[in-house]
């Protein structure tokens, strides 16, 4: 592989990694800045998927000139696959529990179409599972 091509790949790789690091940084700023759990979850989702994918591309580009073994490329693909599969599961469960335990700032909600459903369900079954904190 020619030196010029390697240099270009290196630059692209560094930019990818820089973008990934920036996403991580923005996510942590968002953690501090947003007032309730569900808003924070949105910023947390960024470095977990898009950031990691960028980093994986960066690693791949840096490792390409080194050795052409498919091992690294395959491993990177598997890492991306696992992350894309596992992150939504955790996000959904945390969001669901967060909503039900009232970890959501109602003053910032424009619309809440789930509230009515849960309330009518609770009235039907005679229980109250919803927003115990209030």
């Amino acid at each position, binding site marked *: 592989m020619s030196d010029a091509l390697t240099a270009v790949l290196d630059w692209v790789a560094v930019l990818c990694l820089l973008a990934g690091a920036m996403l991580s940084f923005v996510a942590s700023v968002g953690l501090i800045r947003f007032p309730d759990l569900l808003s924070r979850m*949105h910023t947390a989702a960024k470095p977990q998927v898009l950031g990691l994918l960028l980093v994986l591309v960066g690693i791949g580009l840096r490792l390409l000139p080194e050795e052409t073994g498919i091992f690294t490329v395959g491993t990177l693909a598997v890492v991306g696959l696992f992350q894309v599969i596992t992150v*939504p599961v955790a996000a959904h469960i945390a*969001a669901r529990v967060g909503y039900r335990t009232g970890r959501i700032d109602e003053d910032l909600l424009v619309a809440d179409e789930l509230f009515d459903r849960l309330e009518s369900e609770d009235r039907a079954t005679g229980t109250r599972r919803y927003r115990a904190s209030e």
Partner: protein
Amino acid sequence: MTRPPATRPERVQALRRRLGKVQIPIALGMTVVWMLLFDGFRLREESLGLLVLGFGVSVLIMVVFPLPPVSEGFRFHPWQFLRLLVYFFVQMVQSSFQVTWQTFTPGPVLSSVIAVRMRTDSELMLVCTSIALSVIPGSVVVEVGQPEHVLYIHHLGTRDEAGTERARRDTWRLEERIVRALGTRVDIAKLEAAETVGTESA
């Protein structure tokens, strides 16, 4: 040796029933992951052994932990799948920028929980749509209304009625991309029927 001989055929039958539940395509997918984990695609002497062993382990896992089959099945449309991928990545980058912008602009960031009714009945499409929604920043699936396939989505940065409507339409567009890429003919027909009804009523 100590077990009474009468239970033998039952056991064989149970084993056979479990083996019948093994879904070959999924086992093959797991084998590919196994090969990737063990560097099996670089051709060496032990590659074939890795392949056989990986397939064996996949089948064993599916016998020990049987899962219900992927319900209605799916159909793979390569061209549409490519379009889905492009759409997905564009959405991901775009909403990353959006959330970043919202993070650094002062003032409260409004959000909303909206109910979006899926237009197809397939469980697989529902799962794919909610995975995609969770991965895209700015939307999280809070609750799934089971019998009638409604997704309750927490959406960041919807300031008013128009914002929630836009979020709803985005979700439907995502669903449409997914169904066109992976749905069976029935799903696509249902989607198109729902779409014509929607435009007539609107």
